[in-house]
């Protein structure tokens, strides 16, 4: 490849949501784009729950609904706070939410990423699969000027390199652009894709047509670890998974596979997946360190987007939308520089960060900047309160001859015993502080 000294405007490393958004936006605007993907096809190495938030994709491909492989339109969202044999939950199901066009969809990433990549190629980018970037090329002054791939003479040059190589971002950390991820800033999630007849999915979740349900769960299922679980309905399958902070997983003895098995056996979950056939088991790290754990997002000739940059809102379970938005904003930054005839220096690429700060990506991460620390240090939110809530519900809904005033007192005493009056007030304050 050195022989014909072909040079690209931009090289995008990785073909997930962030890389695809960047490559698509740049190619569509006429830039000469090379996108490199280590998997056999785009999607073959990618894992997500997965929920697709329409807004982020709509801003890139407005008519995506016409051709994208969507599983179900999410019309009902449940949140379950769980104890070993029960849950207290909320359900939001609304006909207004139900009106087309949908706000969020369940997707199967291997299928979705393949579709997204086809759009990238149609827009004019050169996409090469089964090619792994092993290093960044730099000039004498240290500016990134291209990448080296795992082929002989594998040097490829570009004005700018966008790193969309995912949560592990080996390329960026080996090049010294960022530190490796820390156990306290990342969650490990495991998931099974469990197949059931379409009619069974619809009957079990009270759905018709392409309607879908998501259930987010927390409480005893994470065994005291900071973590959540999820159940998403696809057309003829269910995605069921659980994720916990790696720093917590490190300090206990249950394997991720066992954790998932226990979730499958929970009396509230088991009937929903009964008779299903597991056809895949996947695992993935999720960068949940939030705002305070963000690395440098740009430098001389390079930009980080998506999971490689740590753009995940753990509270709202948003990641792929932030990935797509950051990919688009990176591309738009480069288009702006191109129009003005400016080079990809760090000083000029600072406009990327300004765009992020003006968008949902950094606004939301900033809002929840204290959540990771609060959950690490204040375990009561994940263990005591789910237990207390379920105990309170049990007391409240059991008619057993006891008068209601005595029941209320018993509930209140249970809270006070476990957390003390000051503790309860402090918790309310901490929760308010962490989310403002």
């Amino acid at each position, binding site marked *: 490849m050195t022989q014909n000294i072909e040079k690209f405007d931009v090289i995008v490393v990785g073909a997930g949501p962030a890389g695809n958004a960047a490559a698509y936006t740049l190619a569509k605007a006429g830039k000469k784009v090379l996108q490199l993907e280590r998997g056999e096809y785009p999607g073959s190495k990618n894992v997500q729950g997965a929920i697709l938030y329409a807004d982020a994709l709509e801003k890139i491909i407005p008519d995506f609904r016409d051709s994208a492989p969507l599983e179900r339109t999410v019309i009902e969202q449940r949140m379950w706070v769980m104890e070993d044999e029960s849950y207290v939950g909320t359900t939001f199901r609304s006909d207004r939410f139900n009106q087309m066009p949908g706000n969020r969809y369940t997707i199967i990433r291997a299928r979705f990423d393949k579709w997204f990549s086809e759009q990238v190629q149609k827009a004019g980018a050169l996409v090469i699969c089964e090619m792994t970037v092993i290093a960044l090329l730099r000039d004498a002054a240290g500016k990134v000027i291209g990448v080296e791939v795992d082929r002989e003479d594998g040097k490829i040059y570009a004005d700018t390199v966008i790193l969309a190589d995912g949560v592990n971002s080996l390329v960026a950390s080996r090049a010294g652009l960022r530190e490796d991820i820390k156990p306290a800033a990342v969650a490990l999630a495991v998931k099974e894709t469990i197949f059931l007849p379409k009619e069974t999915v619809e009957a079990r979740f009270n759905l018709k047509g392409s309607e879908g349900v998501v259930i987010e769960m927390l409480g005893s299922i994470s065994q005291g670890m900071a973590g959540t679980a999820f159940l998403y309905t696809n057309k003829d399958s269910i995605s069921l998974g659980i994720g916990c902070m790696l720093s917590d997983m490190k300090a206990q003895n249950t394997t991720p596979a066992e954790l998932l098995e226990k979730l499958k056996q929970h009396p509230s979950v088991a009937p929903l997946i009964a008779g299903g056939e*597991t056809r895949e088991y996947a695992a993935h790290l999720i960068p949940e360190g939030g705002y305070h754990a963000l690395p440098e997002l740009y430098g001389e000739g390079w930009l980080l987007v998506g999971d490689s940059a740590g753009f995940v809102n753990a509270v709202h379970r948003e990641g792929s939308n932030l990935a797509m938005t950051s990919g688009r904003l990176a591309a738009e930054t480069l288009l702006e520089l191109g129009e003005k005839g400016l080079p990809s220096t760090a000083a000029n690429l600072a406009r990327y960060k300004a765009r992020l700060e003006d968008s949902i990506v950094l606004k939301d991460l900033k809002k929840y900047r204290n959540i990771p620390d609060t959950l690490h240090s204040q375990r009561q939110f994940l263990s005591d309160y789910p237990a207390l809530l379920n105990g309170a519900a049990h007391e409240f809904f059991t008619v057993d001859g006891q008068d209601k005033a005595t029941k209320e007192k018993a509930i209140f005493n249970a809270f006070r015993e476990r957390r003390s009056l000051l503790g309860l007030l402090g918790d309310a304050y901490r929760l308010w502080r962490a989310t403002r």
Partner: protein
Amino acid sequence: MMKVEEKLFQNRYRVDADRPHIRIKNESVCNDGCVSRACVVCCPAGCWSFEEGKIGLITDGCLECGTCRVVCDTHGNVDWNYPRAGFGILFKFG
């Protein structure tokens, strides 16, 4: 209870025979210098084992998540790479 081996059996892999993509830098660090061996518990694919005082690693079922490298932050004893391009896990659904 479905065992991890049964779960992995459902997956599609293209195994790069005799070319493990993850290596232990120094086995004696695992065997003698590490008490937690968090890799053994945390690896979602059960690739790591510790039996009869010896650490073991078989990467055939690896899901390429990166967990073993990240949990080994105190010792930094995991030489972690992706499999060669085209090899490793091939997610059907992802």
